[in-house]
């Protein structure tokens, strides 16, 4: 157990270093530097050169990388020249919105996929199963952004049940009950759009897993001993099938990263995905690289958590 965990963490370190190198190269490839937007245009060429020299931008690349990485570890992600504030502060404002969106989405994913998967697996080849399988089949082929647009069109505009943009009603007092309610109302439609597409994989996994376990010898034994059907399912089958699902939430993070970008753009929801697109369009590259780095690290950590939890749940993984 510990051996696996430590080995898994050791694998992660070169991944993070590689990621940071890749992002450093990206940052260096970007046209122009932060100075061109920051200083007075009348500054002479020599002074600019001197500032560059002082900032260490003429050093060899490995030295620059080391300095950059040192700043990163200390939590300094640079300055946004578009918003004129430190990147960390800027991201902090948006982080909370994306966090809530992801959290509600994850809860919805589990709320939807577990019952559907269980029904589909337990009563396989009935009309209910066919309906659910049809949903997963179409859900797999539907691009998230099309689904998001159609949801917004139908429920946001046509029926008008949900607000069509933003994260909260303007003019609300933070902390009050109606503020929270308004936030939730703004969250629901984007979260549902993300979740209904995101559940597909989990439903299919759970269905296959249950159908597979149903025919195992130990289930036949349990039935032969006269265990009631509910006990067979709750104690024997689901125990085996549900734990891996619970461990998947780390991998879900990777899936959510791409999803939040589309959904936040479509619902003009002020989160990190929208910030990323804004920063790319306005060429505010220090913000974009910081976001890629953060999302990359989030994905690496998500996979790490899932792998470790899976290894606890399923000992077969540890032996390798």
């Amino acid at each position, binding site marked *: 157990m510990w051996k696996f965990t430590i080995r898994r963490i050791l694998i992660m370190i070169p991944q993070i270093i590689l*990621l940071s190198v890749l992002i450093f190269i990206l940052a260096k490839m970007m046209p122009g530097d932060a100075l061109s937007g920051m200083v007075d245009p009348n500054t002479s060429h020599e002074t600019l050169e001197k500032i560059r020299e002082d900032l260490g931008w003429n050093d060899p690349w490995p030295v620059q990388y080391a300095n950059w990485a040192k700043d990163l570890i200390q939590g300094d992600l640079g300055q946004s020249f578009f918003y004129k504030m430190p990147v960390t502060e800027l991201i902090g404002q948006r982080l909370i919105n994306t966090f809530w969106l992801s959290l509600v989405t994850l809860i919805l994913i589990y709320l939807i996929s577990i019952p559907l998967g269980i029904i589909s697996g337990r009563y396989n080849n009935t009309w209910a199963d066919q309906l659910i399988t049809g949903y997963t089949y179409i859900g797999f082929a539907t*691009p998230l952004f099309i689904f998001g*647009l159609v949801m917004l*069109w139908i429920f946001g505009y046509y029926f008008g049940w949900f607000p069509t943009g933003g994260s909260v009603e303007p003019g609300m007092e933070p902390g009050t009950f109606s503020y929270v309610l308004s936030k939730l109302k703004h969250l629901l439609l984007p979260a549902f759009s993300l979740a209904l597409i995101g559940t597909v994989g989990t439903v299919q996994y759970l269905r296959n897993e249950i159908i597979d376990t149903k025919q195992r010898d130990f289930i036949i034994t349990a039935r032969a001993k006269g265990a009631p059907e509910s006990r067979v399912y709750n104690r024997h089958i689901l125990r085996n099938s549900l734990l891996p699902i619970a461990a998947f939430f780390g991998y879900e993070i*990777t899936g959510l990263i*791409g999803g939040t970008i589309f959904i936040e753009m479509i619902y003009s929801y002020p989160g990190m995905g929208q910030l990323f697109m804004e920063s790319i369009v306005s060429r505010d590259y220090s913000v974009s690289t910081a976001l890629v780095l953060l999302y990359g690290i989030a994905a690496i950590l998500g996979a790490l958590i899932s792998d470790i939890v899976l290894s606890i749940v399923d000992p077969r993984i540890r032996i390798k």
Partner: protein
Amino acid sequence: MDKEAVITSEQLQETNVNPSGLRIFWREIVRDKLALFSLIFIVVITAFVFITSEVLDYEEIVRVDLFNTHAPPSSDNWLGTDYGGRDVFGQLIIGTRNSLSIGILVTVMSGIIGIVFGLTSGYFGGTVDNVFMRILDFFMILPFLMIVITFVAIVPKYSIISFSLIMTAFLWMGIARLVRSKALQERELDYVNAAKTLGTSNFKIMFTHVFPNLSSIIIVNMTLNLAGNIGIESGLSFLGFGFPESTPSLGTLLSYATNPATLEYRWWIWLPAAILILLLMLSVRNVGEALKRATDARQRRG
């Protein structure tokens, strides 16, 4: 010797004639009506789109006509016009052609990289496999969408070629992983050992002996990838980081729907493109699923 055991060479030949891979594929598709219908749909759409886009006047379609913006569908413009007064139907045809072409191009290119990478990793095994898998793991973990968008934004002289190269660079991992796991199994088999004993070069064994045995699963995987890649391309174009401005794609038409007024009142601009993407992806997947069943004798219907 009893009679049954004597097999004439003719009989032997007869039993050895397995239906060829392509024929199995074909039989499975014909048996599955949905897949057959999907295949016909794909062929018809592809043929229609490629032929009409040769006939259509491209300049006419992308010409801006400010007196005729946001026109609803009429006999002149079958699907109305967009914000620049350009004919949506014409853009839909060109867009479908572009989306399909780039989907196929990226699928083939990422397929080639994935096959070479996976074969090398699986065939040699050991340290090579270990190193290659760590590289693959790293690529798998990257936030795909963000990295691609960043590259698209900073690449100088952005063109369709660079776009497909960027997409390929981050999409070869799935097929590489599949080919690697199959190659790991194949390398233990006798025919590989026999070829090695005869002194056949590794390169030749990999590509002329092992590769043909993997071709059917590769075809299946690439078909399923094609569906995904069409979606990814239109998604990137939707965000404005796919095709360059002047070339319409299905995603470009959808991106007009980010304007709330277009989304709410002018369905003719974005809805046909949305339906077309959906149908294309579903059809390609249907065909892919049928092919997948064909590769597994236990699941075949035909």
